[in-house]
């Protein structure tokens, strides 16, 4: 872990792993889609249950991405690690994309099954709050120019917003909601094997896709900081008298290169 936490080592190792991870994601998603479309219609929902093969994994990744972001926020605030900052920033648009997919596919399933695209149900509302939190974080990262300061502000907001994660998970148990409860119980799954297997394969495929995109985005973030550092150096060379005093943000960027 310590070796990976060095940005130079991370770039080298992730560069080797990334093509394999991308290929594995594509293969798993292809198998999941095949199994999903080959599965029989649900006895109550009919073919509409096939929407679950993208809705449930998207919901799972939207929450997983936030948990990863909260862990990175701790790394930023406690250890001030530059790679934690990059990981934290890289996950925001990905989490927003998966939360958006979850909300839209859920609405498209809700119309034929519940008779409405939307209800202010505890699960739906808490997922909408999660999506809005992602959008707020996206705006915050783009508002503050200096990466170190942006990371600290985003970390505080991320950790405050993490209180929504258990609400998303347990909302169906704590309140009387229209949304169905967890399909996994102490006694096993409530879903038939013919639907459960494609659902699990798609969940693995989405997880691999998220991991691929997250690693690729962290690499982009490291490159972006190198670009910023070179631009600042070029600006300082042009105006030696106005040379910038080293701040913690610049020190962070130097550590990243």
């Amino acid at each position, binding site marked *: 872990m310590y070796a990976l936490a060095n940005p130079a080592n991370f770039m080298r190792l992730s560069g080797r792993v990334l093509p394999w991870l991308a290929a594995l994601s594509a293969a798993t998603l292809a198998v999941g889609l095949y199994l999903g479309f080959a599965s029989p219609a649900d006895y109550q929902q009919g073919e509409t249950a096939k929407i679950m093969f993208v809705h449930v994994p998207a919901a799972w990744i939207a929450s997983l991405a936030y948990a990863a972001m909260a862990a990175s926020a701790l790394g930023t605030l406690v250890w001030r690690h530059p790679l934690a900052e990059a990981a934290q920033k890289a996950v925001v*648009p990905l989490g927003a*994309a998966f939360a958006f*997919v979850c909300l*839209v*596919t859920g609405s498209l399933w809700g119309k034929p099954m519940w008779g409405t695209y939307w209800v202010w149900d505890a699960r739906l509302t808490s997922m909408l709050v999660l999506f809005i939190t992602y959008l707020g974080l996206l705006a915050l990262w783009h508002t503050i120019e200096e990466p170190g300061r942006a990371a600290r502000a985003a970390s505080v907001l991320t950790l405050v917003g993490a209180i929504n994660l258990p609400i998303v998970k347990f909302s169906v148990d704590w309140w009387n909601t229209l949304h169905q409860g967890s399909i996994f119980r102490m006694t096993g799954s409530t879903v038939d094997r013919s639907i459960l297997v494609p659902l699990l394969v798609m969940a693995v495929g989405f997880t691999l896709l998220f991991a691929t995109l997250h690693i690729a985005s962290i690499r982009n973030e490291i490159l972006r900081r190198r670009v910023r550092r*070179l*631009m600042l150096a070029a600006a300082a060379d042009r105006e030696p008298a106005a040379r910038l005093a080293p701040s913690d943000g610049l020190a962070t960027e130097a550590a990243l290169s």
Partner: protein
Amino acid sequence: MSAIPHIGSIVAAYAVTAVVLGGTVAAVLLDRRSLRRTLERLEARAGRGRAGTPR
């Protein structure tokens, strides 16, 4: 007349997923290409600057 009930919802759900996730993949790849080009340009300029500086 469709043989599968609610086929429109099913197709729309998969289409939205494909567009959003495909768009995210494309955005990450385009961002990488743009950053690499900028980095190469800046490093070349920094290299020329160092070569032109009298020691």
